[in-house]
């Protein structure tokens, strides 16, 4: 019982702290704190269309964090998830390019599958760099992120450019028959939502209920013991990366067929990095992931209003997200050092 009140206390302290930090930042920017936050929340919840958008952003974050649950369990820092989302988008676009006249559900499904493949391949590359090249997955993943970005730019301005006008607005839009259907006026596709929730459920199930998930957790906790048990840690690492990459790729593919209907340079919209923040904030506890994803999605969508209404940059959402995670870290650290020393980690 004492532990859950402590948990609550920790959360409240963190929220307060991040609120103070945000307020300080806003004051520095000459912005009225409460009004700004109000516009932020309104921007995400104010109208049905906005709520729909929030949920639309919820999906890629959910997909990303679900995959990260697996890689974190295996003791990996999959910073490369951003690039895996991009590659998923690229593969999905590439799959659909031979069909300018459009097609049916089968094509869409094919595009999603292609996206999963793309993301998985990219992730396994980063994983392989680690297992065979001893390049830490942080650097491998990061480098590959930038390479993915470069690849996208090259495609958009090169082989896949719109005839006549190569621009940052992306490739030729897909035929409407390939777009995911949306709920009226809500800019939210029920299929995306379903996919997101299913993926989350599947990831949790995989992690908690299967032998494979148990093996992953073992590898993350003690690679030496995992070796002794005959669990083949290197294989597991690659498998975890593949699954996470696949989920990330799926998110990228959904961005293409469901949201933008074409390939953009900013197709991943930093969702990969945001998903990392979500998972860290949740301390890899599955039950916190959907609500935190939703809250972060709310912040992202709401912050779009800021340049229009207050002449502020929309990166405020990232500031708040980062402040939250830092606040939690600070509170946890202080708690361990000063309130309950010697508990160890």
């Amino acid at each position, binding site marked *: 019982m004492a532990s859950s009140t402590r948990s609550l206390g920790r959360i409240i302290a963190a929220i307060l702290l991040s609120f103070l930090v945000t307020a300080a*930042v806003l004051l*520095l*920017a000459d912005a009225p704190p409460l009004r700004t936050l109000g516009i932020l929340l309104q921007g995400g919840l104010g109208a049905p269309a906005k709520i729909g958008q929030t949920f639309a952003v919820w999906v890629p974050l959910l997909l990303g964090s679900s995959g990260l649950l697996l890689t974190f369990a295996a003791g990996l*820092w999959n*910073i490369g998830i951003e690039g895996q989302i991009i590659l998923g988008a690229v593969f999905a676009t590439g799959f659909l390019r031979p069909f300018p006249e459009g097609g049916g559900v089968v094509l869409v499904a094919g595009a999603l599958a292609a996206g999963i493949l793309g993301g998985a391949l990219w992730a396994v590359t980063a994983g392989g*760099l680690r297992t*065979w*090249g*001893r*390049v*830490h997955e*942080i*650097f*491998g993943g*990061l*480098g*590959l992120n*930038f*390479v993915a*970005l*470069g690849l996208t*730019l*090259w495609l958009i*301005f*090169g082989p896949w450019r719109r005839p006549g006008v190569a621009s940052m607005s992306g490739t030729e839009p897909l035929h409407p028959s390939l777009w995911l259907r949306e709920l009226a006026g809500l800019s939210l596709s029920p299929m995306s939502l379903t996919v997101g929730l299913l993926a989350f459920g599947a990831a949790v199930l995989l992690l908690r209920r299967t032998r494979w998930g148990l093996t992953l957790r073992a590898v993350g906790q003690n690679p030496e013991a995992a070796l002794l048990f005959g669990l083949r840690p290197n294989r597991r690492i690659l498998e975890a990366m593949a699954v996470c990459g696949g989920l990330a790729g799926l998110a990228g593919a959904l961005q293409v067929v469901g949201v933008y209907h074409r390939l953009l*340079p900013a197709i991943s919209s930093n969702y990969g*990095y945001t998903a*990392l*923040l979500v998972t*860290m904030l949740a301390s890899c506890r599955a039950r916190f992931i959907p609500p935190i994803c939703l809250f972060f999605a709310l912040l992202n969508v709401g912050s779009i209003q800021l340049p229009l209404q207050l*002449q*502020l*940059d929309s*990166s*405020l*959402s*990232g*500031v708040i*997200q*980062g*402040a939250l*995670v*830092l606040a939690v*870290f*600070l509170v*946890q*650290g*202080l708690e*361990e*050092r000063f309130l309950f020393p*010697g508990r*160890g*980690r």
Partner: protein
Amino acid sequence: MEFLALTLAGIVSTGAPLVLATLGETLTERAGVINLSLDGSILLAAMAAVAVGLLSGNPWLGLGASGLVGILIAGLVAVLGPVLGRSQVAVGFILTLFCRDLAYFLGHPFARKLGPELPVWSLPGISALPFLGVVFGRHSPVVYLSLLLIPVLWWWVFLTQPGLELRAVGEKPQAAFARGISVHYLRILYTLVGGALVGLAGGTFSLAIKPGWGRPQGAEGAGWIALALVIFGGWHPVRAALGAYLFAALQVLGIMLQESFPGLPAPLFQVSPFPVMILTLLVVNMGRTGWIQDLAYRYPGLRRWVSRWQASAPAALGRNFQPEKEG
């Protein structure tokens, strides 16, 4: 010849911020602390330099602000990591995202404004020389700082007593502690000093190399390259700085090629350092892989070649030290 001199001058100045950041992080990592927030810190410091510079009208104040920002962020890393025992990697990564967003948010009003610039100094005597004069003679003071710091840091780390203690702390903090060296104090100190240099790197970008603040800022990705350069440089100031100039050369080359191939988009050249980064990390880490070790055992010649290229991290890098836990 003139063209070569000008190109080299460009490399020296383009490389200056990278050199500063790399040197700073080398110091920090030598003490055993990894500051993953470099990329975000540089952006935030660059923004602060422009903001303070514009508001005060004095680019030097802007430079000071950038250094201060670097110290503050590094201070957060030092507190959350070595002092409070959180994972240095996690803290650094979160900070890099946070600072990046903070930089863009607070920098919004300063975007695309004509930024203040640090003056360009002509070194008396040197600037008159035929070839070297062009390469080294006319630069912003921060560029000279970056050049100066290379031998200074090399001397500090390898030839002085405090430098020896720095290395000891990063190698084996338990042993350093047993000899009465204050591990915590030194780690915090060098994290802050390294952070100051990282901040200055940001200021260099926005006050000298590419004055002003924009979105996206030209310095994006520089922090990650610096982190990789520290590894590539084997935690040795001179080697790391050489790596920085190599990357600067690649960038300069990229710009020149871009002019010859106008069809390809500019950002493409900006991302080209990263595959090179991965390659260098591969080369430098390869000796630790099992299959290379097996090969090296069978072919002694290979072993010698491998060990020459190997980068050996300070053994305690990234691990927080808790003396109470010993014994």
